[in-house]
């Protein structure tokens, strides 16, 4: 899955009318991506299923889903995409934020020094920070929020659609909206 290559028709449906060659052959590319996703996610799902046959449930997310699939009745394709999309949705997004943080640290070394002073006052050299340190590391907590603010991985998020007509009394026609 390459969210960066989301076909433009997902955002502006009328672009369906424009030949695909004007948008990087998105129909062909989307079909290629679909085939890649089916192969990769399918293979990983089978891997989990075979592991379960050999050594039972290991308590992973997919194990928990499969443990109750008699009730859920998800087919093989649904299982593959439930696991696969979660895996992909949670990998390149977080990595883009961490890379952005490293990028920022090449410029603002004083922020890194301050964060290191904070972590050093709470965590020694004999262990790395863990989740229960969160409350004692407010500057690092703020650093994570700042990384997400400064260079958001999805600066326009996913487009939404109004399910109902909405009246926003506090907004007048302004440059905030592109009609």
């Amino acid at each position, binding site marked *: 899955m390459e969210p960066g290559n989301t076909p433009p028709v997902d955002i502006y449906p009328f672009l369906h009318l424009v030949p695909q060659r004007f948008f990087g052959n998105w129909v062909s590319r989307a079909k290629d991506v679909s085939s890649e996703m089916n192969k990769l996610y399918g293979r990983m799902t089978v891997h989990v299923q075979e592991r379960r046959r050999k050594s039972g449930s290991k308590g992973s997310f997919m194990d928990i889903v499969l443990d109750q699939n008699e009730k859920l009745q998800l087919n093989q394709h649904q299982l593959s995409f439930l696991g696969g999309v979660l895996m992909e949705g949670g990998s390149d997004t977080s990595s883009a934020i961490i890379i952005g943080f490293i990028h920022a640290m090449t410029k603002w070394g004083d922020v890194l020094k301050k964060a290191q002073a904070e972590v050093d006052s709470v965590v020694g050299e004999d262990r790395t*920070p863990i989740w229960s340190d969160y409350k004692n*590391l407010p500057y690092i907590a703020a650093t994570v*929020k*700042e990384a997400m603010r400064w260079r*958001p991985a999805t600066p326009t998020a996913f487009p939404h659609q109004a399910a109902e007509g909405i009246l*926003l009394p506090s907004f007048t026609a302004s440059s905030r909206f592109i009609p």
Partner: protein
Amino acid sequence: MFIPKGTSIIINGWGMHHDKNRFKNPEVFDPDHFKGQTALAAELAAASDYNSRDHYGYGAGRRICPGIHLAERNLFLGIAKLIWAFDILPGLDAQGNTIEPDLDPRTGYCEGFLVCANDFPCRIKLRSPARRDTIMKEYEKAQVEVFSQFEGDI
């Protein structure tokens, strides 16, 4: 203003994140932009007053990122461990001079829906040999207790 049913709505997260009225010097990476705001994103996203939200990195509304709880913990652990373990320094050119990082979102970052920094020069140095030993020790423990249960040829 009336938004008719079926209207596509794009959240201008970038615009809100770089709004000078909300964040002083928005182009500067400064954690003090969030000074005193340590509540988790999932909690703040549910706040009734949008002004008390931290950021829109996870989107908004019913279709907000379903991985928000996992991601926030994941990012905290990843970033806190990097800070604990490494010094991060700008890259050097052949003469040993510091290369000024290209932080411009137009030239230093890729285009598209999912945005990431282009490759950039940097130097990452371990802070001490003791930290190296701790990393290796924790890695071996994770290998035995966690990864070994799930590994195999896929």
